[in-house]
Each structure stands twice: as structure tokens, then as C-alpha cells.
């Protein structure tokens, strides 16, 4: 019933989405994880187009792939999770200035 093109595209998208989901959970780098979720949303958005849901696709694209990733990325910065190299961390800690308060916490 379904035309084979749709079949193959959706299979591809599903594989991509699975991979994105798994890598979002398994990759060491938090930044990569966020990018993976973005990719997942993008795939989902395309799938929505395929499923004749343009409204939802647009929303998923804008909200899921765009806004949500933006929020997550901002969170990465504020949580100090971004940056693998020492240099990057140094820059970030200069910029963000969000030092954990463990010392104070352990005193109380």
C-alpha cells in the first residue's frame, strides 16, 4: 500500500532517530548529546512531513530542533558541562563565572 519510497525514507529516518537517541544518551560529550537530540528532532520533523502533518513538522522543527536545542545549549554553558579541552574549560569558567559552592556547602 505504501509506496516504497516512503518506506525507505521512513526506515532511514527511524534509523537516524534511533542512532541520535542512543548517541544522545551514550556519547561522553554533553555538547554532542545536545546536538544529537537536535538531530533527532530534525528527523522527527521530516517524518512528520512524511506523515502529512505539516503543522506538527513545523512545530517540531522550530521548537524541537531549534528552541529546545538552544535551551539545552544554554544550559550546557550555565551548567559548565561543555568543553572537553582544558583550554575550553578555562575560557568557559572565565566567561561564565559560575563556580560551584561545594566548599560552602560542606561547611554548613
Amino acid at each position, binding site marked *: 500500500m505504501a509506496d516504497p519510497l516512503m518506506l525507505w525514507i521512513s526506515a532511514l529516518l527511524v534509523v537516524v532517530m534511533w542512532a541520535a537517541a542512543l548517541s544522545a544518551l551514550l556519547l561522553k560529550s554533553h555538547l554532542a548529546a545536545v546536538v544529537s537530540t537536535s538531530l533527532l528532532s530534525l528527523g522527527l520533523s521530516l517524518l512528520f512531513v512524511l506523515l502529512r502533518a505539516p503543522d506538527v513538522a513545523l512545530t517540531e522543527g522550530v521548537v524541537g530542533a531549534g528552541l529546545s536545542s538552544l535551551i539545552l545549549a544554554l544550559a550546557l554553558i550555565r551548567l559548565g558541562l561543555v*568543553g572537553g*579541552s582544558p583550554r575550553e574549560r578555562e575560557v568557559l569558567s572565565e566567561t561564565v563565572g559560575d563556580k560551584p559552592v561545594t566548599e560552602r556547602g560542606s561547611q554548613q
Partner: protein
Amino acid sequence: MGVVGDLFLLFGALFCALGALGLVRMPDVYNRIQAGTKAVTLGLLSLLVGVAFHQPAWIPKLLVIALFVLLTNPVGSTTLARAFLRSGIEPWKRGDKR
């Protein structure tokens, strides 16, 4: 008209494909960015032109899209490149491992 439009479309698709190829082939991140930006920008624009030939009524919207692409693609790639540079990734020199 239709033929010209088709030609533009083909041209655009070709450049997009080339851009994609560049992503794979290029040796380092800066080169890949450049391939992904330059070729794809051109490809996209020609795709837009091709569409414009097919659907003249859409021209205003297409113009806006073109403007958007022109604005964001270079800026985005530049910013990315700067970010990479700042985070300490050295540009590739001939003879380096890929």
C-alpha cells in the same frame, strides 16, 4: 521557462551534492565548513531561482528565503570557525595527517 528552471534546479542540486562530498573529502574542520557553506549556498540559491521559474507567484517569499540564506550561512560558518579556532583546533597544513 520550464527548461531554464529545470536547469537551475539541476545546477543547484549538483552543488549541494558537491558540498556534501566536500564534507567527507576535506581534511579538517575549517575546510569542511567552507565546503558546506560556499557550495551549498550557491546550490540553494540556484534551487530557489529554479523554483522561481516554475512558480512565479512565490517570488517574494523566495526572495526572503534567499536573503535569509545569504545572511545566515556565512555568518554561521564564520562563527563556527572562530569557535573552533578559539577552542584550540589548529588549521590543517599540507603534510598533516587527515
